[in-house]
């Protein structure tokens, strides 16, 4: 496993990390990373935060210096799509017309924003945010006084709202459910974020459905139409209604796909020579019985590291990393250790009014996760606590 070629499809967090870790583990063969984007691998989280605010530039996003990647003989095949996988021949066909042979193939194709399935959503004032290009173009629309309508009070939508307020825009958020980040956050933290947004002058409309976007194609502004008849005029509309995993390549290769490329505990697809990692992969939940697909830097980097260790012959037990995530909104740094979805009880430590507190979330007495606002030490300790809770289970599983 040291000399044969490995191909990585997707030069995001996950794909880059896999390539870097393969070299760290001593892999000496040819290593190609096929990147659809023209930029070298970059950091996405600042796209809705510092980069959108204009306090960070493109240089601040680069994940590794080109000279360092050259030195590691990691070859970036930029501006190129992998269009098909020939499993019998073990090669990947490229949009450039060429193909790359592989001994092992790592799919790290990420995810793409969902669009709103309503009339008018193709209007040029309607935007999504995933790439540096999206962010650069959105930034020019966020002028003082611009009317911004954000659809979806999820992480991306709220970060964009906070940044847009900081730039002096008028911001309205439309959310179908009855609170912010309803699926992923405990009530106390969700309420805290709502309070922050309201204090900062964001208008949030709950329980509302968007039915159409009404605008003259060549005009800049558009109106957002809601089911209750409300019309919201907007200079720009940002759709933040979640992402879908980018699985087209896996599907055409005949691999199992179910809201993500389905992999086993070694992050391996049904074809033992093909792995999938990061936003695009659906993997067995190490803490439960079902499966998970996560969208975070932690998940992308830990899975990249895991797959490299696995391929380099570490007789590794399954992937068990504890998930963690962060979001920055105004002065609040929210960090989540574990996954708190599905908790039946939570305990708040500290006073939310002070802007510094943690919420511990349990299910049937078992700690699922901890959400910390401006309490970074709680977060780091919670990650260790959750890892320790997982370790005996992993050790027991390895023993059988």
């Amino acid at each position, binding site marked *: 496993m040291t000399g044969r070629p490995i191909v990585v499809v997707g030069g995001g967090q996950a794909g880059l990390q896999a390539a870097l870790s393969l070299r760290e583990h001593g892999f000496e063969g040819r290593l190609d990373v096929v990147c659809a984007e023209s930029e070298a691998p970059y950091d996405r989280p*600042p796209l809705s935060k510092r980069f959108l605010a204009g306090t960070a530039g493109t240089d601040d996003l680069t*994940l590794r210096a080109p000279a360092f990647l050259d030195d590691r003989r990691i070859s970036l095949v930029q501006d190129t799509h992998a269009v098909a996988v020939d499993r019998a021949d073990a090669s990947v066909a490229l949009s450039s017309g060429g193909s790359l042979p592989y001994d092992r193939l790592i799919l790290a194709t990420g995810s793409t924003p969902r669009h709103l399935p309503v009339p008018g959503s193709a209007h040029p004032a309607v935007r999504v945010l995933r790439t540096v290009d999206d962010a650069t173009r959105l930034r020019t629309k966020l002028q003082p006084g611009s009317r911004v309508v954000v659809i979806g009070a999820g992480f991306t939508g709220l970060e964009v709202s906070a940044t847009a307020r900081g730039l002096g825009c008028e911001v309205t958020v439309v959310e179908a459910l009855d609170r912010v980040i309803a699926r992923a956050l405990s009530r106390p933290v969700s309420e805290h974020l709502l309070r922050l947004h309201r204090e900062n002058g964001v208008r949030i409309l709950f329980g509302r459905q968007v039915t159409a976007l009404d605008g003259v194609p060549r005009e800049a502004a558009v109106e957002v139409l809601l089911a209750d008849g409300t019309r919201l005029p907007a200079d720009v509309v940002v759709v933040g209604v979640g992402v879908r995993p980018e699985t087209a390549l896996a599907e055409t290769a005949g691999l199992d796909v179910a809201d993500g490329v389905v992999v086993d505990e070694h992050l391996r697809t049904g074809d033992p020579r093909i792995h999938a990692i990061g936003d695009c992969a659906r993997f067995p939940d190490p803490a439960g019985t079902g499966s998970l697909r996560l969208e975070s830097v932690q998940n992308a980097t830990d899975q990249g590291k895991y797959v490299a260790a696995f391929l380099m012959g570490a007789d590794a037990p399954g992937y068990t990393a504890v998930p963690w995530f*962060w979001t920055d909104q105004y002065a609040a*740094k929210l960090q989540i250790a574990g996954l708190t979805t599905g908790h039946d009880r939570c305990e708040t430590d500290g006073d939310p009014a002070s802007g510094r507190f943690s919420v511990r979330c349990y299910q049937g007495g078992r700690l699922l996760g901890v959400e910390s606002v401006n309490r*970074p*030490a709680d*977060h780091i*300790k919670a990650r260790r606590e959750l890892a320790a809770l997982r370790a005996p289970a992993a050790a027991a599983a390895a023993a059988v």
Partner: protein
Amino acid sequence: MAKITYSRTDGTSDTVDVPVGSTVMRGAVLNGVRGVVGECGGAGQCGTCHVFVDAGDADRVTPLHPLESEVLDTTAVPRRPTSRLGCQIPVGEELDSLEVKLPDYQLPPV
């Protein structure tokens, strides 16, 4: 531009040119300096870009922030009076060079 030297306890070191506006953490991570992890990408939230700045250099860098101090309480190698997070040390115009010492590890050993 500042020349940042990252020294490890095994006696090896790397020196990197880090542009103004970047940070001690980014200079290391971008160039693959061994001994700095930077898991959270510079958000000051993970404690894996722990470095030691000699007392004599303390006033040449930005002062310690309370949240940074809180993260330093959780680093894998326990903090010392000279501990800092590399991501919270920006390279300013006046900084021409700086040596930081790296702890033995950034993540708790498993």
